[in-house]
Protein backbone atom coordinates (compact mmCIF):
# COMPACT_ATOMS: atom_id res chain seq x y z
CA UNK A 1 0.00 0.00 0.00
CA UNK A 2 2.85 2.33 0.86
CA UNK A 3 4.30 1.74 -2.55
CA UNK A 4 1.29 3.04 -4.43
CA UNK A 5 0.73 6.15 -2.32
CA UNK A 6 2.45 9.08 -3.98
CA UNK A 7 4.42 11.52 -1.80
CA UNK A 8 3.41 15.15 -2.08
CA UNK A 9 7.02 16.30 -2.00
CA UNK A 10 8.13 14.07 -4.82
CA UNK A 11 5.08 15.04 -6.89
CA UNK A 12 5.90 18.69 -6.38
CA UNK A 13 9.57 18.34 -7.24
CA UNK A 14 8.87 16.14 -10.24
CA UNK A 15 6.50 18.71 -11.72
CA UNK A 16 9.04 21.49 -11.17
CA UNK A 17 11.97 19.45 -12.47
CA UNK A 18 10.16 18.24 -15.54
CA UNK A 19 9.03 21.67 -16.61
CA UNK A 20 12.39 23.27 -15.89
CA UNK A 21 14.06 20.50 -17.85
CA UNK A 22 11.57 20.81 -20.68
CA UNK A 23 12.12 24.55 -20.87
CA UNK A 24 15.92 24.38 -20.71
CA UNK A 25 16.34 21.46 -23.07
CA UNK A 26 13.85 22.92 -25.51
CA UNK A 27 15.75 26.17 -25.62
CA UNK A 28 19.34 24.96 -25.44
CA UNK A 29 19.24 21.46 -26.88
CA UNK A 30 16.24 20.41 -28.94
CA UNK A 31 15.92 23.61 -30.90
CA UNK A 32 19.56 23.75 -32.11
CA UNK A 33 19.91 19.99 -32.57
CA UNK A 34 16.65 19.31 -34.35
CA UNK A 35 17.09 22.53 -36.31
CA UNK A 36 20.53 21.49 -37.50
CA UNK A 37 19.37 17.98 -38.34
CA UNK A 38 16.42 19.36 -40.30
CA UNK A 39 18.63 21.87 -42.11
CA UNK A 40 21.07 19.16 -43.00
CA UNK A 41 18.31 16.92 -44.26
CA UNK A 42 16.85 19.74 -46.33
CA UNK A 43 20.24 20.53 -47.83
CA UNK A 44 20.86 16.86 -48.60
CA UNK A 45 17.46 16.58 -50.21
CA UNK A 46 18.07 19.74 -52.23
CA UNK A 47 21.49 18.50 -53.30
CA UNK A 48 19.97 15.23 -54.44
CA UNK A 49 17.24 17.04 -56.31
CA UNK A 50 19.67 19.33 -58.08
CA UNK A 51 21.86 16.36 -58.94
CA UNK A 52 18.83 14.68 -60.42
CA UNK A 53 18.01 17.84 -62.35
CA UNK A 54 21.58 18.05 -63.64
CA UNK A 55 21.40 14.44 -64.67
CA UNK A 56 18.20 15.09 -66.58
CA UNK A 57 19.72 18.13 -68.25
CA UNK A 58 22.77 16.11 -69.17
CA UNK A 59 20.48 13.51 -70.64
CA UNK A 60 18.64 16.14 -72.63
CA UNK A 61 21.94 17.54 -73.85
CA UNK A 62 23.15 14.14 -74.95
CA UNK A 63 19.87 13.52 -76.68
CA UNK A 64 20.20 16.89 -78.45
CA UNK A 65 23.72 16.12 -79.52
CA UNK A 66 22.67 12.82 -80.89
CA UNK A 67 19.80 14.39 -82.75
CA UNK A 68 22.07 17.02 -84.28
CA UNK A 69 24.58 14.40 -85.26
CA UNK A 70 21.89 12.32 -86.84
CA UNK A 71 20.57 15.30 -88.77
CA UNK A 72 24.05 16.11 -89.99
CA UNK A 73 24.53 12.57 -91.09
CA UNK A 74 21.27 12.62 -93.00
CA UNK A 75 22.20 15.91 -94.61
CA UNK A 76 25.56 14.60 -95.66
CA UNK A 77 23.88 11.58 -97.11
CA UNK A 78 21.47 13.67 -99.14
CA UNK A 79 24.25 15.95 -100.29
CA UNK A 80 26.31 13.02 -101.42
CA UNK A 81 23.34 11.56 -103.18
CA UNK A 82 22.62 14.82 -104.95
CA UNK A 83 26.24 15.16 -105.99
CA UNK A 84 26.19 11.66 -107.35
CA UNK A 85 23.04 12.38 -109.26
CA UNK A 86 24.48 15.59 -110.69
CA UNK A 87 27.60 13.79 -111.67
CA UNK A 88 25.65 11.07 -113.42
CA UNK A 89 23.50 13.63 -115.15
CA UNK A 90 26.48 15.62 -116.30
CA UNK A 91 28.13 12.54 -117.63
CA UNK A 92 25.05 11.42 -119.46
CA UNK A 93 24.48 14.92 -120.79
CA UNK A 94 28.00 15.09 -122.03
CA UNK A 95 27.63 11.73 -123.58
CA UNK A 96 24.45 12.72 -125.35
CA UNK A 97 26.03 15.93 -126.55
CA UNK A 98 29.02 14.08 -127.84
CA UNK A 99 26.82 11.52 -129.46
CA UNK A 100 24.73 14.10 -131.29
CA UNK A 101 27.86 16.00 -132.26
CA UNK A 102 29.44 12.87 -133.50
CA UNK A 103 26.34 11.87 -135.36
CA UNK A 104 26.14 15.28 -136.93
CA UNK A 105 29.76 15.14 -137.94
CA UNK A 106 29.38 11.67 -139.32
CA UNK A 107 26.38 12.82 -141.27
CA UNK A 108 28.21 15.80 -142.66
CA UNK A 109 31.15 13.61 -143.42
CA UNK A 110 28.91 11.20 -145.23
CA UNK A 111 27.30 14.00 -147.13
CA UNK A 112 30.70 15.38 -147.97
CA UNK A 113 31.94 11.93 -148.89
CA UNK A 114 28.90 11.37 -151.05
CA UNK A 115 29.29 14.65 -152.88
CA UNK A 116 33.03 14.11 -153.24
CA UNK A 117 32.34 10.66 -154.48
CA UNK A 118 29.84 11.97 -156.93
CA UNK A 119 32.15 14.66 -158.20
CA UNK A 120 35.01 12.20 -158.24
CA UNK A 121 32.87 9.76 -160.18
CA UNK A 122 31.84 12.49 -162.55
CA UNK A 123 35.41 13.52 -163.03
CA UNK A 124 36.44 9.91 -163.34
CA UNK A 125 33.68 9.39 -165.89
CA UNK A 126 34.80 12.41 -167.84
CA UNK A 127 38.37 11.32 -167.58
CA UNK A 128 37.51 7.72 -168.59
CA UNK A 129 35.36 9.00 -171.42
CA UNK A 130 38.15 11.24 -172.64
CA UNK A 131 40.64 8.41 -172.21
CA UNK A 132 38.49 5.94 -173.99
CA UNK A 133 37.85 8.41 -176.80
CA UNK A 134 41.58 8.94 -176.99
CA UNK A 135 42.21 5.24 -176.96
CA UNK A 136 39.46 4.66 -179.42
CA UNK A 137 40.81 7.39 -181.64
CA UNK A 138 44.28 5.90 -181.43
CA UNK A 139 42.98 2.41 -182.05
CA UNK A 140 40.75 3.55 -184.85
CA UNK A 141 43.70 5.32 -186.26
CA UNK A 142 45.79 2.28 -185.94
CA UNK A 143 43.15 -0.03 -187.31
CA UNK A 144 42.27 2.07 -190.09
CA UNK A 145 45.80 2.57 -191.22
CA UNK A 146 45.96 -0.92 -192.50
CA UNK A 147 43.58 -2.18 -195.12
CA UNK A 148 43.59 -5.72 -194.26
CA UNK A 149 42.90 -5.06 -190.80
CA UNK A 150 39.98 -2.88 -191.77
CA UNK A 151 38.53 -5.62 -193.75
CA UNK A 152 39.09 -8.18 -191.10
CA UNK A 153 37.35 -6.00 -188.63
CA UNK A 154 34.49 -5.49 -190.91
CA UNK A 155 34.26 -9.16 -191.36
CA UNK A 156 34.44 -9.82 -187.67
CA UNK A 157 31.81 -7.42 -187.06
CA UNK A 158 29.73 -8.79 -189.74
CA UNK A 159 30.31 -12.23 -188.38
CA UNK A 160 29.19 -11.14 -185.04
CA UNK A 161 26.37 -9.25 -186.42
CA UNK A 162 24.85 -12.35 -187.94
CA UNK A 163 21.30 -12.10 -188.32
CA UNK A 164 20.10 -12.85 -185.03
Amino acid at each position, binding site marked *: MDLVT*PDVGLLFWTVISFF*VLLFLLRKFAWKPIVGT*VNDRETSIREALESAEKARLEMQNLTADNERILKEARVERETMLKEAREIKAKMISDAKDEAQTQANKMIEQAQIAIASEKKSAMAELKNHVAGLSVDIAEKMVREELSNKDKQLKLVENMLGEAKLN
Partner: protein
Amino acid sequence: MQINTFKTLLLGLLLSLSFVVKANESIEEKSDEKDFNVTDMIMHHIKDAHDFHIMDWDGHAISFPLPVILWTNDGLVTFMSSEFHHNDDGTIVVEKGGQKFIKFHEEIYYANDEADHGSYVSFDPEHHPTNVAPLDFSITKLVFSMFMSMILLLLIFGFSARAYNRSENGVPTGIAKFTEPLIVFIRDEVAIPNIGEKHYKRFLPFLLTLFFFIWINNIMGLIPFFPFSGNLSGNIAFTGVLALITFIITTFVANKDYWKHIFWMPGVPVPMKLFLAPIEFMGIFIKPISLMIRLFANISAGHIIVLSLISLIFIAKSIWIAPASVIFSVFISVIEVLVVAIQAYIFTMLTALYIGSAMEEHEHEH
Protein backbone atom coordinates in the same frame (compact mmCIF):
# COMPACT_ATOMS: atom_id res chain seq x y z
CA MET B 1 28.06 -6.25 -32.12
CA GLN B 2 30.09 -8.87 -30.33
CA ILE B 3 32.11 -6.28 -28.55
CA ASN B 4 28.90 -4.60 -27.51
CA THR B 5 27.52 -7.82 -26.10
CA PHE B 6 30.73 -8.39 -24.24
CA LYS B 7 30.70 -4.87 -22.85
CA THR B 8 27.11 -5.24 -21.75
CA LEU B 9 27.91 -8.49 -20.00
CA LEU B 10 30.89 -6.95 -18.29
CA LEU B 11 28.80 -3.99 -17.20
CA GLY B 12 26.13 -6.32 -15.91
CA LEU B 13 28.73 -8.28 -13.98
CA LEU B 14 30.09 -5.15 -12.38
CA LEU B 15 26.59 -3.98 -11.56
CA SER B 16 25.65 -7.20 -9.88
CA LEU B 17 28.96 -7.40 -8.03
CA SER B 18 28.21 -4.01 -6.58
CA PHE B 19 24.81 -5.29 -5.63
CA VAL B 20 26.52 -8.08 -3.75
CA VAL B 21 28.64 -5.56 -1.93
CA LYS B 22 25.62 -3.46 -1.14
CA ALA B 23 23.58 -6.39 0.04
CA ASN B 24 26.50 -7.49 2.16
CA GLU B 25 26.59 -4.12 3.81
CA SER B 26 22.90 -4.35 4.52
CA ILE B 27 23.24 -7.70 6.22
CA GLU B 28 25.95 -6.34 8.47
CA GLU B 29 23.69 -3.56 9.57
CA LYS B 30 20.90 -5.95 10.38
CA SER B 31 23.07 -8.71 11.73
CA ASP B 32 22.66 -7.57 15.29
CA GLU B 33 18.93 -8.03 14.88
CA LYS B 34 19.65 -11.70 14.22
CA ASP B 35 16.78 -12.02 11.76
CA PHE B 36 17.27 -10.67 8.26
CA ASN B 37 13.94 -9.58 6.86
CA VAL B 38 14.14 -9.70 3.06
CA THR B 39 10.87 -7.88 2.46
CA ASP B 40 11.88 -5.02 4.73
CA MET B 41 15.28 -4.71 3.10
CA ILE B 42 13.78 -4.68 -0.40
CA MET B 43 11.01 -2.26 0.53
CA HIS B 44 13.54 0.00 2.16
CA HIS B 45 15.55 0.00 -1.04
CA ILE B 46 12.56 0.55 -3.30
CA LYS B 47 11.16 3.43 -1.30
CA ASP B 48 12.26 6.98 -0.87
CA ALA B 49 14.56 8.04 1.98
CA HIS B 50 15.49 11.27 3.68
CA ASP B 51 19.22 10.63 3.58
CA PHE B 52 21.30 8.99 0.93
CA HIS B 53 22.72 5.83 2.40
CA ILE B 54 26.14 5.17 0.88
CA MET B 55 27.43 2.19 2.85
CA ASP B 56 27.91 0.79 6.32
CA TRP B 57 31.37 0.80 7.79
CA ASP B 58 32.21 -0.96 10.99
CA GLY B 59 28.61 -1.02 12.07
CA HIS B 60 28.01 2.67 11.38
CA ALA B 61 25.95 3.86 8.48
CA ILE B 62 27.71 6.33 6.22
CA SER B 63 25.20 8.46 4.45
CA PHE B 64 24.84 11.71 2.63
CA PRO B 65 22.54 14.06 4.55
CA LEU B 66 19.85 15.81 2.55
CA PRO B 67 17.79 18.85 3.47
CA VAL B 68 14.40 18.33 5.02
CA ILE B 69 11.87 20.99 4.01
CA LEU B 70 8.54 20.91 5.83
CA TRP B 71 5.46 23.02 5.37
CA THR B 72 4.04 22.99 8.88
CA ASN B 73 1.14 24.74 10.55
CA ASP B 74 3.56 27.52 11.45
CA GLY B 75 5.15 27.88 8.08
CA LEU B 76 8.32 26.58 6.51
CA VAL B 77 10.79 24.56 8.60
CA THR B 78 14.09 23.32 7.24
CA PHE B 79 16.91 21.26 8.71
CA MET B 80 19.34 18.57 7.60
CA SER B 81 18.24 14.97 7.74
CA SER B 82 21.41 14.11 9.66
CA GLU B 83 19.72 15.53 12.75
CA PHE B 84 17.72 12.33 12.98
CA HIS B 85 21.00 10.38 13.32
CA HIS B 86 19.76 7.61 10.98
CA ASN B 87 16.89 6.98 13.34
CA ASP B 88 13.86 5.58 11.57
CA ASP B 89 11.56 4.35 14.31
CA GLY B 90 10.47 7.62 15.87
CA THR B 91 12.68 7.63 18.95
CA ILE B 92 14.74 10.71 18.18
CA VAL B 93 12.95 14.04 18.27
CA VAL B 94 14.15 17.04 16.29
CA GLU B 95 12.92 20.32 17.61
CA LYS B 96 12.79 23.18 15.13
CA GLY B 97 10.79 26.39 15.21
CA GLY B 98 9.02 25.36 18.38
CA GLN B 99 7.79 22.13 16.80
CA LYS B 100 8.88 18.55 17.39
CA PHE B 101 9.37 16.09 14.55
CA ILE B 102 10.12 12.42 14.42
CA LYS B 103 10.90 10.16 11.50
CA PHE B 104 9.18 6.81 11.25
CA HIS B 105 9.67 4.55 8.21
CA GLU B 106 11.00 7.48 6.19
CA GLU B 107 7.95 9.62 6.86
CA ILE B 108 8.17 12.71 9.03
CA TYR B 109 5.46 13.25 11.64
CA TYR B 110 4.79 15.63 14.49
CA ALA B 111 6.08 13.96 17.65
CA ASN B 112 3.79 12.93 20.45
CA ASP B 113 4.23 14.82 23.70
CA GLU B 114 5.22 11.73 25.62
CA ALA B 115 7.33 8.78 24.64
CA ASP B 116 5.82 5.35 24.63
CA HIS B 117 8.61 2.77 25.09
CA GLY B 118 11.03 5.40 23.85
CA SER B 119 9.02 6.03 20.69
CA TYR B 120 7.04 9.20 20.07
CA VAL B 121 4.70 7.52 17.59
CA SER B 122 1.25 6.17 18.29
CA PHE B 123 -0.30 3.47 16.17
CA ASP B 124 -3.68 2.27 15.05
CA PRO B 125 -4.52 -1.45 15.37
CA GLU B 126 -2.93 -2.17 11.93
CA HIS B 127 0.33 -0.64 13.12
CA HIS B 128 0.04 2.45 10.97
CA PRO B 129 1.15 5.66 12.69
CA THR B 130 -1.71 7.93 13.70
CA ASN B 131 0.47 11.03 14.16
CA VAL B 132 -0.27 14.05 12.01
CA ALA B 133 2.26 14.64 9.26
CA PRO B 134 3.36 18.04 7.94
CA LEU B 135 3.56 18.55 4.17
CA ASP B 136 6.95 17.17 3.27
CA PHE B 137 8.79 18.95 0.47
CA SER B 138 12.18 17.55 1.45
CA ILE B 139 14.96 17.03 -0.99
CA THR B 140 14.82 13.29 -0.52
CA LYS B 141 17.05 10.66 -2.06
CA LEU B 142 14.80 10.46 -5.11
CA VAL B 143 14.51 14.23 -5.53
CA PHE B 144 18.28 14.39 -5.23
CA SER B 145 18.75 11.77 -7.92
CA MET B 146 16.20 13.57 -10.07
CA PHE B 147 18.29 16.73 -9.84
CA MET B 148 21.35 14.65 -10.70
CA SER B 149 19.65 13.30 -13.78
CA MET B 150 18.59 16.82 -14.77
CA ILE B 151 22.16 18.04 -14.54
CA LEU B 152 23.36 15.03 -16.49
CA LEU B 153 20.78 15.56 -19.22
CA LEU B 154 21.58 19.25 -19.46
CA LEU B 155 25.29 18.46 -19.72
CA ILE B 156 24.84 15.71 -22.31
CA PHE B 157 22.52 17.67 -24.55
CA GLY B 158 24.18 21.00 -23.93
CA PHE B 159 27.41 19.49 -25.19
CA SER B 160 25.57 17.83 -28.06
CA ALA B 161 24.15 21.17 -29.15
CA ARG B 162 27.59 22.74 -28.83
CA ALA B 163 29.06 19.93 -30.91
CA TYR B 164 26.95 21.10 -33.85
CA ASN B 165 28.16 24.67 -33.54
CA ARG B 166 31.75 23.51 -33.87
CA SER B 167 31.21 21.70 -37.13
CA GLU B 168 30.41 24.10 -39.94
CA ASN B 169 28.32 21.81 -42.15
CA GLY B 170 25.94 20.44 -39.51
CA VAL B 171 27.72 17.11 -39.25
CA PRO B 172 27.65 15.87 -35.65
CA THR B 173 30.90 15.63 -33.75
CA GLY B 174 31.76 14.20 -30.38
CA ILE B 175 28.86 13.27 -28.15
CA ALA B 176 26.33 14.38 -30.74
CA LYS B 177 27.29 11.32 -32.77
CA PHE B 178 25.72 9.29 -30.00
CA THR B 179 22.71 11.47 -29.22
CA GLU B 180 21.67 12.35 -32.75
CA PRO B 181 20.53 8.85 -33.78
CA LEU B 182 18.40 8.69 -30.62
CA ILE B 183 16.84 12.07 -31.31
CA VAL B 184 16.22 11.18 -34.94
CA PHE B 185 14.78 7.83 -33.81
CA ILE B 186 12.27 9.57 -31.54
CA ARG B 187 11.38 11.96 -34.32
CA ASP B 188 11.07 9.42 -37.14
CA GLU B 189 9.81 6.34 -35.32
CA VAL B 190 7.73 7.85 -32.52
CA ALA B 191 6.62 11.40 -33.25
CA ILE B 192 5.98 11.43 -37.00
CA PRO B 193 4.18 8.07 -37.40
CA ASN B 194 1.90 8.62 -34.41
CA ILE B 195 1.19 12.34 -34.43
CA GLY B 196 1.60 12.99 -38.12
CA GLU B 197 3.77 15.19 -40.28
CA LYS B 198 1.53 18.21 -39.67
CA HIS B 199 1.54 18.59 -35.90
CA TYR B 200 4.54 16.62 -34.68
CA LYS B 201 6.83 19.66 -34.37
CA ARG B 202 4.77 21.05 -31.49
CA PHE B 203 5.19 17.91 -29.39
CA LEU B 204 8.70 16.84 -30.35
CA PRO B 205 10.46 18.74 -27.51
CA PHE B 206 8.04 17.25 -24.99
CA LEU B 207 8.48 13.71 -26.32
CA LEU B 208 12.26 14.03 -26.43
CA THR B 209 12.41 15.38 -22.89
CA LEU B 210 10.06 12.66 -21.69
CA PHE B 211 12.04 9.87 -23.32
CA PHE B 212 15.45 10.96 -22.13
CA PHE B 213 14.24 11.92 -18.65
CA ILE B 214 12.67 8.51 -18.11
CA TRP B 215 15.55 6.64 -19.69
CA ILE B 216 18.30 8.36 -17.76
CA ASN B 217 16.43 7.90 -14.48
CA ASN B 218 15.86 4.24 -15.30
CA ILE B 219 19.55 3.77 -16.01
CA MET B 220 20.58 5.69 -12.91
CA GLY B 221 18.38 3.39 -10.87
CA LEU B 222 20.29 0.40 -12.23
CA ILE B 223 23.67 1.73 -11.11
CA PRO B 224 24.04 0.44 -7.57
CA PHE B 225 26.36 2.94 -5.89
CA PHE B 226 26.19 6.34 -4.28
CA PRO B 227 25.03 9.16 -6.48
CA PHE B 228 22.72 6.79 -8.35
CA SER B 229 20.69 3.74 -7.30
CA GLY B 230 17.55 5.72 -6.45
CA ASN B 231 14.41 3.97 -7.61
CA LEU B 232 12.94 7.17 -9.03
CA SER B 233 11.16 5.86 -12.11
CA GLY B 234 9.86 3.02 -9.93
CA ASN B 235 8.10 5.55 -7.76
CA ILE B 236 4.44 6.14 -8.43
CA ALA B 237 4.68 9.88 -7.78
CA PHE B 238 7.22 10.31 -10.56
CA THR B 239 5.42 8.18 -13.13
CA GLY B 240 2.13 9.69 -12.01
CA VAL B 241 3.29 13.23 -12.78
CA LEU B 242 4.52 12.25 -16.24
CA ALA B 243 1.29 10.40 -16.97
CA LEU B 244 -0.69 13.37 -15.70
CA ILE B 245 1.16 15.70 -18.07
CA THR B 246 0.35 13.33 -20.92
CA PHE B 247 -3.29 13.29 -19.80
CA ILE B 248 -3.49 17.09 -19.67
CA ILE B 249 -1.89 17.49 -23.09
CA THR B 250 -4.15 14.84 -24.60
CA THR B 251 -7.23 16.47 -23.15
CA PHE B 252 -6.30 19.96 -24.24
CA VAL B 253 -5.25 19.23 -27.80
CA ALA B 254 -8.17 16.90 -28.46
CA ASN B 255 -10.37 17.97 -31.35
CA LYS B 256 -14.12 17.61 -31.89
CA ASP B 257 -13.76 14.20 -33.52
CA TYR B 258 -12.03 12.80 -30.46
CA TRP B 259 -14.82 13.80 -28.08
CA LYS B 260 -17.41 12.67 -30.58
CA HIS B 261 -15.80 9.25 -30.77
CA ILE B 262 -15.92 9.04 -26.99
CA PHE B 263 -19.41 10.21 -26.19
CA TRP B 264 -21.34 9.43 -29.36
CA MET B 265 -19.43 6.84 -31.37
CA PRO B 266 -20.37 7.35 -35.01
CA GLY B 267 -21.29 4.40 -37.17
CA VAL B 268 -22.87 2.16 -34.54
CA PRO B 269 -26.52 1.76 -33.50
CA VAL B 270 -27.88 3.93 -30.68
CA PRO B 271 -27.96 1.25 -27.93
CA MET B 272 -24.34 0.48 -28.75
CA LYS B 273 -23.50 4.19 -28.54
CA LEU B 274 -24.99 4.32 -25.06
CA PHE B 275 -23.06 1.23 -24.10
CA LEU B 276 -19.75 2.46 -25.51
CA ALA B 277 -19.84 5.98 -24.09
CA PRO B 278 -19.04 5.07 -20.45
CA ILE B 279 -16.36 2.61 -21.54
CA GLU B 280 -14.71 5.17 -23.78
CA PHE B 281 -15.02 7.79 -21.07
CA MET B 282 -13.26 5.54 -18.59
CA GLY B 283 -10.65 4.91 -21.25
CA ILE B 284 -9.59 8.57 -21.08
CA PHE B 285 -8.43 7.99 -17.51
CA ILE B 286 -7.32 4.40 -17.83
CA LYS B 287 -4.84 5.27 -20.57
CA PRO B 288 -2.65 7.58 -18.44
CA ILE B 289 -3.16 5.37 -15.38
CA SER B 290 -1.85 2.39 -17.30
CA LEU B 291 1.12 4.51 -18.39
CA MET B 292 1.80 5.37 -14.77
CA ILE B 293 1.46 1.83 -13.47
CA ARG B 294 3.40 0.22 -16.30
CA LEU B 295 6.53 2.23 -15.73
CA PHE B 296 6.26 2.15 -11.94
CA ALA B 297 5.67 -1.61 -11.74
CA ASN B 298 8.26 -2.54 -14.35
CA ILE B 299 11.10 -0.61 -12.81
CA SER B 300 10.16 -1.56 -9.25
CA ALA B 301 9.86 -5.20 -10.30
CA GLY B 302 13.34 -5.06 -11.80
CA HIS B 303 14.80 -3.74 -8.55
CA ILE B 304 12.85 -6.25 -6.48
CA ILE B 305 14.01 -9.20 -8.59
CA VAL B 306 17.68 -8.25 -8.46
CA LEU B 307 17.52 -7.64 -4.72
CA SER B 308 15.59 -10.87 -4.14
CA LEU B 309 18.18 -12.87 -6.03
CA ILE B 310 20.93 -11.35 -3.92
CA SER B 311 18.89 -11.96 -0.79
CA LEU B 312 18.79 -15.67 -1.61
CA ILE B 313 22.24 -15.85 -0.05
CA PHE B 314 20.89 -14.56 3.25
CA ILE B 315 17.72 -16.58 3.12
CA ALA B 316 19.67 -19.78 2.56
CA LYS B 317 22.36 -18.60 5.02
CA SER B 318 25.01 -20.23 2.86
CA ILE B 319 27.85 -18.81 0.83
CA TRP B 320 27.52 -21.65 -1.66
CA ILE B 321 24.34 -20.18 -3.06
CA ALA B 322 26.26 -17.02 -3.98
CA PRO B 323 27.49 -18.11 -7.45
CA ALA B 324 23.98 -18.96 -8.61
CA SER B 325 22.71 -15.78 -7.06
CA VAL B 326 25.33 -13.68 -8.82
CA ILE B 327 24.84 -15.37 -12.18
CA PHE B 328 21.10 -14.87 -12.03
CA SER B 329 21.36 -11.27 -10.97
CA VAL B 330 23.87 -10.61 -13.77
CA PHE B 331 21.39 -12.11 -16.17
CA ILE B 332 18.50 -10.04 -14.81
CA SER B 333 20.62 -6.88 -14.75
CA VAL B 334 21.52 -7.34 -18.41
CA ILE B 335 17.87 -7.83 -19.23
CA GLU B 336 17.05 -4.76 -17.16
CA VAL B 337 19.41 -2.64 -19.25
CA LEU B 338 17.23 -3.58 -22.21
CA VAL B 339 13.96 -3.27 -20.30
CA VAL B 340 14.63 0.25 -19.05
CA ALA B 341 15.25 1.43 -22.60
CA ILE B 342 12.12 -0.34 -23.85
CA GLN B 343 10.03 1.10 -21.03
CA ALA B 344 11.20 4.63 -21.80
CA TYR B 345 10.41 3.96 -25.46
CA ILE B 346 6.98 2.55 -24.69
CA PHE B 347 6.06 5.45 -22.42
CA THR B 348 7.05 7.94 -25.12
CA MET B 349 5.49 5.87 -27.88
CA LEU B 350 2.14 5.57 -26.11
CA THR B 351 2.17 9.25 -25.18
CA ALA B 352 2.68 10.08 -28.84
CA LEU B 353 -0.04 7.60 -29.77
CA TYR B 354 -2.54 9.16 -27.37
CA ILE B 355 -1.73 12.67 -28.52
CA GLY B 356 -1.96 11.53 -32.11
CA SER B 357 -5.33 9.85 -31.60
CA ALA B 358 -6.66 12.97 -29.88
CA MET B 359 -5.69 15.11 -32.88
CA GLU B 360 -6.54 12.64 -35.59
CA GLU B 361 -8.76 14.03 -38.31
CA HIS B 362 -11.30 11.65 -39.75
CA GLU B 363 -11.81 12.62 -43.35
CA HIS B 364 -14.83 10.38 -43.88
CA GLU B 365 -17.96 9.89 -41.87
CA HIS B 366 -18.38 6.31 -40.70
